[in-house]
């Protein structure tokens, strides 16, 4: 049977090195299949993370041949020519726990800092509003919220972002994409604090719009446009004295 050479980063927060493995090359296999084969058959102590295997949960992202990808939905033949060696590393821009498993806490802490939780306008105490909010599906705001709502929180954009690498306080594409969906949620009442939270050097104003986030998002979302939307909203709100 044909073989596939794989180099996997092994180590922890202290440091590590690449380790070589050889797995059977199959017609249809994903990067996650390869990692799982290695852990089950060759290196039982290999640490990695996955749950759903079908691109819903956002837990299996790794760096494959230099690019962050969702490994469960990435076929080997899409990223490596026959005979080419696969190189798998943990996601960049996040602390490594061990091997391919990174600590996602800083990533999700930034969602919280970007005020990424829904703040009901009609029931500030969190109770269920008396009336249903009517949000026409074709309204502009609804369409803009829809554009970013399918994020699975995999961290691919965060690991691909240069600004995150340069500034450890930078909120990153996913957190601001989330904030933008809420800015466009007509039921939400938390926008004053949210827009404060996403502005400045740690927020949308540091984005260079290089759009790596948009290019690499496995769900084909467009965080770059979401960040541009935040900049636009903040600009006009500040200029017209609305905040």
């Amino acid at each position: 049977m044909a073989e596939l050479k794989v180099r996997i980063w092994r180590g922890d927060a202290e440091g590590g090195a690449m380790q070589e493995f050889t797995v059977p090359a199959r017609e249809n296999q994903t990067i996650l299949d390869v990692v799982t084969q290695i852990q089950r058959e060759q290196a039982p102590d290999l640490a990695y993370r996955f749950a759903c295997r079908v691109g819903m949960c956002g837990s299996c992202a790794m760096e494959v041949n230099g690019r962050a990808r969702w490994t469960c939905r990435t076929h080997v033949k899409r990223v490596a020519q026959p005979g080419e060696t696969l190189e798998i590393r943990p996601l960049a821009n996040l602390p490594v726990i061990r091997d391919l498993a990174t600590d996602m806490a800083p990533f999700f802490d930034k969602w919280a800092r970007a005020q990424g939780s829904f703040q009901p306008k009609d029931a500030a105490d969190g109770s269920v509003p008396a009336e249903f909010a009517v949000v026409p599906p074709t309204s502009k705001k609804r369409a803009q919220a829809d554009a970013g709502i399918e994020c699975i929180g995999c961290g691919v954009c965060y690991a691909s972002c240069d600004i995150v690498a340069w500034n450890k306080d930078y909120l990153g594409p996913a957190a601001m994409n989330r904030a933008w969906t809420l800015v466009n949620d007509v039921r939400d009442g938390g926008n004053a604090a949210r827009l404060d939270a996403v502005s400045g050097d740690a927020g949308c104003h540091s984005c260079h719009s290089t759009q790596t986030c948009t290019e690499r998002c496995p769900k084909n979302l467009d965080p770059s446009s979401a960040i541009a939307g935040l900049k636009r909203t903040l600009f006009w709100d500040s200029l017209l004295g609305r905040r």
Partner: protein
Amino acid sequence: MRQSGTQLWAIQRITAAFLGIAVIVHLVTIMIAVRGGLSATEILARTRGAELWFAFYAIFALCAGLHGAIGLRNIAGEWLGLRGRGVDALWVSTGLVTAAFGIRAAWGLYHAG
């Protein structure tokens, strides 16, 4: 500081919009002015006592100073990790000093005896 983030960004964009037009006016003027050779007399004849040219170049210099200083601030923050109020004060001074040099030059051409 959060409000000022929006303001710095807005100032950089607005100055960029002005500079985009101003640089074209500046270059076109140069191209037209040098067609018959370039002399100090000719330049001074155009600029001396010309309020519009003075205003144009004063705003040009101010925009260039602010735009450049904000850009340098971003580069220093991202590439060198230089951030904070002390560094910001340095960039404000850089911007104003750069602008002052330009405005002084424009004033000199306006007032040349």
